[in-house]
Structures are given as C-alpha cells and as structure tokens.
C-alpha cells in the first residue's frame, strides 16, 4: 500500500530518531547501513500490509513490533560494545561495555560496581605512587600513634595525612608497593571485566532480544 504524507512523515521520524540514537554508539558508515536495513524492513512490512481504513493504526502496529528506535539502537550498541571489549581488551572499550551491561540489569549493575571499585582503587594506588616524590611528607603509609590495645586506632592507613593523630612511616620504598598494587589491581580488574563480559555474552547469546512468551 502507498503511504500518505502523514504516514511517510511518521516513518521518517522513526528513522531520524534511530539514526540520531545510533550516531552516538556506531561509526557513521555502520549507522547508514543499519538505517537502510531498518528502512527496508519497514517498506517490506508496509507493502505486505493489507489496506486498512486507519493507516495510523497499521503504522503504529508495525513500529510497535519493530520496537522503539532508542531500544533498537541500544541493542546495536550493547552487541557492538561487548564484542569490541572482548576482542580488543582495551580498557576504554571494556569500560563502555561494562557501563552498558550495568545499565541492563541488577546483576550487571553489581558486577559493574565491583569492577568500578577495582579500577578506582587501582588508579588511586598509581596516583599515590606518582605523588610520593612530589609530596614525600604527605603520601605514605600511616600508622596510629596509639596502640590498637588502647582501642582508638585501627592499624595502617594508606594515602594523604588528613588525621592529626597518626604518623607517616612510609619512605620512598612505598612507591614500588603502590605501583605493584595499583597496576596489579588494574590488571586484575581488566581481566575480571573481560572474563565477566565473555561469560555474560555466553550466558545470554540473545541478550538484546526480548522474547515474548509463546501463546
């Protein structure tokens, strides 16, 4: 069937939103290809649809079955970012993939939170190793002045001295410790993130698909 101007505008509007949503996550050439494929899908659906008195109802049915454009774009985004992270192992690609997974459910969120803590603490150790030569008196391992038996201090602290009743016992020897701890944590977090994404993808091969219960 041939669409009216209003129907054509509705389809163009859908494709416009899809294109804009995809533009933030896919390369330009891929965006063009995806939009062309979805456009082809819609034209097939429309040409196969029987003429109905209310064109708007028919179009909304077709678009509902296809899914909202943002959701279609998100499905592409998740598929690609997770793939890219697994294949390249680059920290930025992994961070993006973990972010997408974290937004998709409780399990993903908890894993994302744990990985964020790992990266964050690792980065802090590396920063402390860099800061130690610049601020030797303010960066180190801090030990309480009073013993634990007195029930006040709870042992060594790492970082900048913001507490009056502790003292720095760390010399420059803390630098290699911070470096090893920092890069070790970053490495383990990255490895853990990659393994998690591989597991997550394997566990849910059609993770971007919503499967309606069989009637």
């Amino acid at each position, binding site marked *: 069937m041939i669409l009216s101007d209003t129907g054509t505008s509705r389809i163009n509007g859908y494709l416009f939103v899809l294109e804009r949503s995809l533009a933030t996550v896919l390369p330009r050439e891929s965006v063009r290809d995806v939009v062309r494929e979805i456009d082809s899908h819609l034209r097939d659906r429309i040409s196969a649809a029987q003429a109905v008195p209310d064109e708007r109802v028919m179009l909304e049915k077709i678009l509902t079955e*296809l899914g909202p454009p943002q*959701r279609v774009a998100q499905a592409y985004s*998740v*598929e*690609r970012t997770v793939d890219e992270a697994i294949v390249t192992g680059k920290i930025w690609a992994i961070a993006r993939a973990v972010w997408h997974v974290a937004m998709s459910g409780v399990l993903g969120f908890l894993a994302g939170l744990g990985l964020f803590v790992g990266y964050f603490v690792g980065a802090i150790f590396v920063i402390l190793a860099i800061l130690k030569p610049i601020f030797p008196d303010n960066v180190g391992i801090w030990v309480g002045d009073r013993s634990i038996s007195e029930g006040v201090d709870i042992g060594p602290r790492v970082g900048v001295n913001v507490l009056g009743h502790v003292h720095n016992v760390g010399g420059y020897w803390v630098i290699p410790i911070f470096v090893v701890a920092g890069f070790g944590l970053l490495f383990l977090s990255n490895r853990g993130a990659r393994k998690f994404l591989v597991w997550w993808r394997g566990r849910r091969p059609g993770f971007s698909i*919503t499967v309606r219960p069989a*009637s």
Partner: protein
Amino acid sequence: MPLETWQEQLRRGSLDLAILLTVSAGPRYGLAIIQHLEAFTDLIVTEGTIYPILGRLTRDGLLDSYWVEDEAPHPRKYYRLTRQGTRRLTDMKSQWRAFAGKIERLMEAASSAERNNRDSE
C-alpha cells in the same frame, strides 16, 4: 526460578542456532528470517532487535551479508552462511542432538523409575 524465565532462557540459548538454520537453506533478508522463525518456532522476537544479532553473527564470521538492489522496489540486505558458519552449524547441530538425547534418556529413566515405584506400591 519461575518456569517462564527458564523457558525464555531456553529460547534465547537456541536463537543463534535457529538463525543459522534459517539461512542454511539459502540467503534470506532480515524480515524473511523473522517470518521463517515465526512460522516454524515460537522464538517470537521483537523484530528490531534481531538485526543486531545478525550483525554480531556477521562480525563473528558466521554470516556474510550483501545488498540486493533490484529484487524489490527497495533494496534488501541478504544474509548467507560462510564456510565458518557452515562448520559452526554442523557442530551446533551435533551438540544439540547429543544434548537433547541425553535429556531424553534422563526423562525416560525418570519415567520408568516412576512406573516401577507405582507398580511396587
């Protein structure tokens, strides 16, 4: 785990195999793949999200895609199995049959044990 969740996991887990089987007979475009799945299975999917999966299978080297410009009033993107995809499909089919066979044997064993228990009572 609710039964619906388990059913959904079963469907999701078999979707890659279903798509590869759908294009094994010959190249198909996206909507034709969806319609084939709807006709032969209850793997009813939200149509727009099957395309990213087709993209993933293509990136994994299991499918190959190309545009056909002159078949319809508008161009269509076709998908076909690659050699790697054919090999993977053969492996997946044998794995699936072996797995289904094991589960079938388990169910038969459980049924026969049930019958024996009933007879002895």
